């Protein structure tokens, strides 16, 4: 009945002699918020890079909506319905906020159109504006992106990911570098997004994760060591052992 949106099987990633991921097998179901946690170096970013097509796994397979993603090129992932945001803000610095989102919107159609004036595409403008509305940045639409405050840039980062209307949203530490106020705003945004899409989150702030997630995956040394509801994870002995002495962030 509930077929997985994304199924990964025995994913392994090696960099020369170093094993970044090993035997990761799991599935993600539509409409849930799943958080991936683990100490630094556990392989969270590597897993994200595999799921968004930045890295090709050395072994294992990924199936999205039943289709094997092997051989799919990085820029095609977003066309399939998987979009991601980055831990270090990765926007188009000299374009305005609106242009940032609109150029992302354009990628799915008319990207090779060398003749028509780009202002003649009202539906692109409308889509861009609605993405900005969703993240609360409409007021800043004409400002140059590099002059935005950090929190607003993170929101723009998410708007760019949103614009392709993805079924699966991969968010890499969306609250990175944010203080408590901005984190609260981001959490509210994420809760709203969670009602419409499937979200995969990498984060460090435990309180935020526990409140937001339906399910938590714990990575350690490239292996999946725990997988369950927030309650399960909080009481899991293996997880407690791994996290003993770790910085819990905004507890």
């Amino acid at each position, binding site marked *: 009945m509930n077929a997985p949106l994304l199924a990964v099987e025995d994913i392994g990633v090696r960099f020369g002699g170093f094993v970044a991921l090993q035997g990761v097998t799991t599935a993600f179901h539509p409409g849930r918020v799943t958080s991936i946690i683990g100490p630094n170096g556990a392989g969270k970013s590597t897993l994200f890079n595999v799921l968004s097509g930045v890295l090709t796994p050395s072994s294992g397979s990924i199936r999205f909506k039943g289709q094997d993603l092997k051989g799919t090129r990085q*820029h095609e992932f977003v*066309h399939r319905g998987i979009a991601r945001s980055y831990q270090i803000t*990765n*926007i188009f610095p000299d374009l305005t906020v609106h242009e940032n989102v609109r150029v992302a919107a354009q990628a799915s159609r008319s*990207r090779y159109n060398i*003749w*028509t004036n780009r202002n003649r595409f009202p539906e692109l403008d409308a889509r861009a504006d609605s993405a900005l509305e969703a993240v609360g940045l409409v007021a800043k639409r004409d400002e140059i992106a590099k002059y935005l*405050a*950090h929190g607003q840039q993170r929101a723009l980062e998410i708007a760019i990911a949103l614009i392709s209307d993805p079924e699966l949203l991969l968010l890499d530490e969306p609250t990175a570098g944010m*203080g408590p106020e901005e984190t609260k705003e981001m959490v509210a945004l994420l809760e709203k997004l969670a009602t419409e899409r499937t979200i995969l989150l990498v984060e460090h702030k435990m309180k935020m994760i526990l409140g937001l997630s339906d399910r938590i995956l714990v990575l350690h040394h490239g292996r999946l060591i725990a997988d369950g509801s927030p309650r399960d994870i909080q009481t899991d002995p293996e997880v407690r052992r791994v996290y003993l002495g770790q910085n819990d962030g905004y507890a």
Partner: protein
Amino acid sequence: MTSPALAEPLPSSVRKPGRVKSLMTTYRVPLSIIALCLLPWLLPSKALAVNVLIYGVVAVGYNLLFGYTGLLSFGHAAFVGAGAYITGIAIGQFGVPWYAAVLLGVLGGGLLAFAIGALSTRTRGIYFSMVTLALAQLVYYVALQASSWTGGENGLRGFTVNKINLLGYDINFLDPVNKYYVLMAFAALALWVVSRILNSPFGAAIEAIRENERRARTCGYNVERTKLLSFTLSGTICALGGTMSALHLAFVPLDSLHYHASGMIVMMTLLGGASSFFGPFVGALVFLVMEDVFSLWTSHWQIIVGSIFVLFVLFLPKGIWGTFLARFVR
């Protein structure tokens, strides 16, 4: 992290461009054409004006790739030369009428640009510049060897265009003023085409790639294919410049294919300003005037131009026009 309280107003770049800037951008093609119409009357010689036209077109075409897509090619002389040689050969050896020869030159140059672009866009980062230089140098050596077609070291001759028949009227092409305005029509066409490309969704795509290639890729752009299209379009415009040069000189020197010629294009573009539409034209003008003036003083004028270029890279990277726009145009 909240925005700091500012003692002075935000820089104008934070807001959308102001009225004058917007107007200049919207009407850049007509404004440029007006400037070009006046040019021959402002310069000491018509021949200089024609050269400015030719190299202005080449630089504007080059800038599509360099300034707007962010790719530093050192091989664009190959496309200028290809356009020139093909036009010359078509007229001289096959008796093709001038307009068809121009068309062939543009298409041929564009095809070469596609081929070289396909190979060089397979490389990333700084490799790209080296590869474009080397591939264009390959074209140089091939042209050197194929002397029965190209005239080898001596260049291509024997294809003078004396008069042009346009819509039933015979225009004496050898008259400098006529020549200028006929070639200016080509230049106007090139400027219009480049402007449309820049305004299009594709124009937004190449800007995105220039700003953040990685991000453009994850937004869904096939970066390699987009770069290749930009490369090809850019080379095609340069080829048009080459055909103009062939018509003007009735001669194609072999050196027009050497990477030094490519370097000259780069210098012109940078001197004028790579971040603006008309900058490359200004750069061509400045470079050619400098060459004219300095070579009167000394046969070693290249050392002056080279030093000026080094100073520009260090202190005026936006170029003359670019700096002017940034400082004085809101």
